[in-house]
């Protein structure tokens, strides 16, 4: 269990210095309604790295995020978030948001609420505060719709505003629940590049959950692969392998590489039909 590090702590690249860890999960197990959702999950996230949380719907991704956010207590195991105030060291961008188009809230208002929205009283407006919000919106490429009602923005634009809302309080860890699910290919690529840049420039750990890993492959430093409630963690080329994933799923799977893309399919001995164990459109709990 490591203690707080200042956000500017130097990164010893590749050395995996424990001081860079911003999140550590040790043997996290979650039982809900008599079902085991997560089974002895352990991994850690480091500052400056982008991690993909990959798994099919129902693999436990959302549950894992809820545990990290402190919204759900694990049945067993420990979650350690570095920082003096763990609750405010984690920024979160939810999976779906349907904001009312008539909401009298501009993009800049929502980002300003990210600074101190949980405080009592009315914020004193100041030029410094206003400029801080503007800089944050510019940093995520949302400057040009700073004064637009948030509900009028497209899905990708709203997502940028929510990223700015989460980042402006200087979290050490940014969690995004399926941020690519409703984006077209180009917006998804832009979002992934933005998040990779944020991880490196702001020296924070970014974790992105996704049921499809291909959009993340070019940029992710590590993958946490969830299947059957268990997790495998490491660099993508060490985790996304037939032997590792077969152990995880508890039956044989094959990893097929087609150019830049990777497909995980059920192996021989199971259904002949090449199903994608991590590719469904149904809703996750």
């Amino acid at each position, binding site marked *: 269990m490591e203690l707080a590090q200042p956000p500017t702590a130097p990164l010893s690249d590749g050395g995996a210095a424990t001081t860079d860890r911003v999140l550590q999960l040790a043997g996290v197990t979650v039982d809900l309604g008599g079902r085991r959702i997560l089974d002895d999950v352990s991994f850690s996230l480091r500052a400056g790295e982008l991690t993909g949380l990959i798994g099919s719907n129902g693999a436990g991704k959302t549950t894992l995020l809820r545990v990290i956010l*402190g*919204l759900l207590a694990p049945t067993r195991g420990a979650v350690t978030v570095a920082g003096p105030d763990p609750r405010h060291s984690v920024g*979160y961008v*939810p999976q779906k*948001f349907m*904001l009312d188009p*008539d*909401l*009298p*809230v*501009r993009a800049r*208002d*929502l980002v300003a*609420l990210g600074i*101190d*929205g*949980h*405080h*009592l*009283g*009315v*914020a004193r407006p100041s030029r410094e505060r206003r400029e801080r919000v503007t800089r944050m919106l510019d940093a995520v490429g949302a400057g040009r719709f700073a*004064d*637009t*009602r*948030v509900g009028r923005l497209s899905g990708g634009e709203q997502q940028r505003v929510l990223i700015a*809302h989460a980042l402006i309080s200087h979290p050490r860890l940014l969690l995004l629940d399926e941020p690519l699910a409703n984006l077209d290919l180009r917006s998804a690529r832009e979002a992934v590049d933005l998040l990779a840049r944020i991880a490196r420039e702001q020296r924070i750990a970014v974790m992105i959950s996704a049921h499809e890993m291909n959009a993340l492959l070019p940029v992710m430093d590590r993958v946490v692969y969830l299947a059957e409630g268990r997790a495998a963690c490491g660099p993508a080329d060490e985790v996304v392998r037939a032997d590792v994933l077969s152990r995880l799923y508890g039956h044989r799977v094959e990893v097929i590489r087609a150019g830049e893309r990777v497909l995980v399919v059920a192996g021989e001995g199971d259904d002949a039909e090449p199903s994608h164990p991590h590719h469904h459109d149904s809703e996750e709990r």
Partner: protein
Amino acid sequence: MFSGFMVNAWIVASLAAVVGGAVGFFVVMRGASFVAHAIPNGSFAGAAGAALVGASTLAGLGVFSVGGALGIGLLGRRSRRDVATALTLVFMLGLGALFLSFSAENSEAAYSLLFGEVLGISSNEIGPTLVLSALGLLMLGLLWRPLLLDSVLPGRAPGRRTLAIELAFLLLVAITTTMTVPVVGTTLIFTLMIAPAASARALTARPGLALLLSAAIALMTVWGAIALSYTTNWPVGFFVGSLGACAYALSRVAHWSSGG
């Protein structure tokens, strides 16, 4: 129009309008119109009960609207809020029917509770109304940021905090109800808690300005209604309702013609 008993009407109605319009901003933000319908209608029973035991109307309204708010907040924790609201409402209305049946002078008292009796407001209502407005505005100021954040991105805080915010909001609706029902009655409370806020949000994209605008529109509505009622001798409720609807229609036209 500004002498004698009318002064009481102006003061109490103005306070009710400002608080109703301001709290209404959050009622509309949170999609809580049904709650803002149920608490005032349920509090009707409190007023009927108060008449029965000889207590003040405000006390009866206060006790029942706070009770309704707590019922909705606590029941709604584990089930759908609309169902919790409906059940709280029917339970309170049931009590109201019982109290009214025991009461002798029911029809006239019931009418003033349903449609308000702004011109009959007495000077001893000014004190409690002042205290309630101060309390309501203070709560609004304190809760401004957490309530706004929770209204835009609900359910992001841990469970206990979310419940605290919801209960504080319901309490605000209860306070507003207690001071607003004597002015416009339970049936017309939407004219102060929904119409001004819905109009304001069409006119501005700034949350703080929208809240102030909502309070201002509510104030104009009530002042206009009292003046028109005084000159025509038609019921205040008619003017409050139609002015509220006009404000909303005009704001939509302004919004639409400005290309928004």
